[in-house]
């Protein structure tokens, strides 16, 4: 089978991403991009105290499938992702687009082998700033265990304020990892709860995940995000 390019995602506590990246570079990764995000809080006590977010870092590494498997093994061991709340990692098949390739040329890979590999899905929701928590809440109601929130901005829309500002609306991007069987329930719950059907209310899409580590499956089969 041809080399499959993937993007390897890890979510760890803030400050740890550099260490993870160094370890990954030892394994042969070329480089990575680090984003600042927020994880959800599981502890009820902390939530009562008003803590609703934990600082996280998200590390994205572009890697071949082989390398990303190696990364899973090494990083899991080095940072004990298997323990609760230590961090999670997952792989999303992505194709690195090069100038030389065009859409038609490379239709070579085997569809079914790829489909079989999908164990989880990553639901990504982009909503207006402030509604990210709402989104996580409704996802939780539908069975998701947690989510990671990243602040982002949308592309500019000119407005009619006194200063000719091109307002770049601030957005919350929510990543929720969930098992294959639950994905549609959560998706539809978010879709209806946040009223994404209306124009401008936000968008939602899913990415297939071929491998995860650090997600703790509990008894009810729920998928525990490492972001507690």
């Amino acid at each position: 089978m041809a080399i499959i390019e993937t993007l390897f995602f890890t979510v760890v506590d803030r400050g740890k991403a550099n260490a993870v990246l160094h370890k990954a570079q030892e394994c042969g990764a070329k480089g990575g991009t680090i984003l600042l995000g927020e994880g959800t809080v599981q502890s009820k006590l902390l939530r009562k105290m008003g803590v609703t977010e934990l600082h996280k870092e998200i590390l994205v590494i572009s890697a071949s499938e082989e390398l990303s498997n190696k990364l899973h093994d090494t990083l899991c061991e080095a940072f004990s992702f298997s323990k609760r709340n230590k961090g999670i990692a997952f792989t999303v098949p992505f194709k690195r687009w090069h100038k030389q390739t065009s859409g038609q040329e490379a239709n070579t890979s085997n569809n079914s082998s790829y489909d079989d590999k999908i164990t989880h899905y990553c639901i990504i929701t982009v909503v207006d700033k402030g509604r990210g928590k709402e989104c996580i809440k409704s996802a939780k109601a539908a069975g998701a265990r947690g989510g990671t929130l990243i602040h982002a901005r949308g592309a500019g829309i000119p407005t009619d304020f006194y200063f000719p500002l091109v307002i770049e609306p601030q957005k919350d991007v929510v990543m929720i990892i969930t098992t294959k069987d639950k994905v549609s329930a959560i998706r539809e719950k978010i879709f209806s709860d946040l009223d994404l059907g209306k124009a401008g209310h936000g968008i939602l899409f899913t990415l297939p995940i071929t491998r995860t580590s650090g997600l703790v499956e509990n008894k009810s089969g729920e998928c525990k995000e490492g972001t507690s």
Partner: protein
Amino acid sequence: MSLLFEKTKEVLRTLLPVVILVLLLCFTIVDVETDVLIRFLVGSVLLLIGLSVFLFGVDLSMHPIGEYMSQEVATSKTPIKIAILSFLLGFLITVAEPDLLILGHQIQDASGNTLKSTIIVYMVSIGVGVLILLGVFRLLRGKPSYNTFMAVIYGIIFILVFFVSEEFLAISFDASGATTGALTTPFVLAISLGLSNIKGGKNEEENSFGLVGVMSAGPILAVMLMSIISGQKNIHGDAGEYVYAEGVLGPIISKFPGILLESLIALLPITILFFFYNFIKFKIPKEELKGIIIGLLFTLLGLTVFLTAVNSGFMDMGRIIGIEIGKMSPWILIGTGFLMGLIVVLVEPAVHVLGEQIEEVTSGHIPISLIRSTLSIGVGTAIALSMVRIVIPAVKLWYFLIPGFLIAILLSFIADPVFVGIAYDAGGVASGPMTATFVLAFAQGAATIIETANVLVDGFGVIAMVAMSPVLSIMILGTIFRHKRVEYPTIAKKPAVTSHLIDEINLEHYCILVIVNRGFAEKVVDVARQSGAKGATIMRGRGTDENQKVMLPIINIELQPEKEIVWFITTTDVSAPIADSLLNDQQLEQDGEINVFISPTEAMVRTFSTIHASNDNE
């Protein structure tokens, strides 16, 4: 694990050196009563708790309030509303600052009652209001550039310097230290961040800082003008007899209610303004509002405990150390002053807040430890020079102050633009409650022992120095930063043969993920739009690549360059043209170091594909 624990750890790390230094001095060269020592230790514990809780509360309350208020300012449709609102913000936070009232009384005494303290408080507050107004207009218009703007303001200050006496020079700079208190600085930082977030664009990062710097020029101008207009030149009188507190817990408990009231008054105007706007405009969801209210309570409690600890536990200790060391050789005094400045500044609440904001804004690109060390060195030098001034009366304050600011202003034109804002902010940030109590008490202690020194004048000078030196030191760092080396080892670009693993699945949408250097996201969106993309989501991050190393000269620290990540959701028919056109753009390829990834976005788009298409314009 928990955020509060994180803060406590952070505060502990900065507080520990201070405690160790003081204990070391106490057990070696300085003779301190047991009571004072125990009170210092109790104070340290209280400070740890108070500051952690305070920082935690600021995160929960000041941040969102600043964001909402700045949104209200920026999205106004008339200039008058922007003017009124930003003036009001500056005025209200300053007029309630307890330190300013204390300063007002000091000036009233010093001027022999010709300047009334209430007039001083209002004048300074108006000064801050006007400058915040100008700063907000500058930020939103995007011109003149920040360094020119600050150069003009300080140019005016320099002209005024010739008309005021040395005493009032010290007082006016001190007034700027007094207004940038523990509460106002985090709030103004949040406003600055909020405004720049809304404005966005290429200078977003630069705009996230600098408002504190603008604001701290207000009091300087106001006090100088008052001194000139009233014709007041000389300071009369001397500092009152200093009374040491007795006992261990007594002073702590007795100070608590008064400080609680002061903190409450300081917090009230912002809170009222926010709730007023919330009532008529924002209408924030209940849960979020609850978080803000809890945050406000934490802020109040934390601030009170912190200030009580500093006032009762640290002030006497600072003064005793000052007196004892002042008796010894001047060199020990200067050395101790340097050490004290070095470590005490890191305990300042606003320094923590600024550090956090720098991390947030630059996605970790600027190492906070670097900023902190630079601040430390700056303040350490400031205190050491202040000690020199106490020892040698011939050395005047303006010998340091004027050249310091002059060099800083010159450097601001060649320094890395992000640092210019941070540097001007740093002056206000460093001169917080720790400096105003502990370090000031130390300096005054030393001044009482050395006969040639004037307790009042030298005391004022210390804060002025602390407000100046970080501006200079961070500006120097920014100049170094500007000349960072970017190394690109030449690599043979081999066209990798990659397969499409995704094409066969019957999907209607693709997710395109683009990683570029910071500043190119807008360009990416433009190019993609021409090829048929509708909208995009942009995130900030930092990244490394083995082919690209960013190094700082002189100090040789490796940096992680900042990146922007752009997500597109497109229909299948346009995804390939978009990716191709992105990669074919010369500028993006060479300067932006673009990377494009494509993946199918599944299922959801199947279910809701028709609705989805119309929502794409996020």
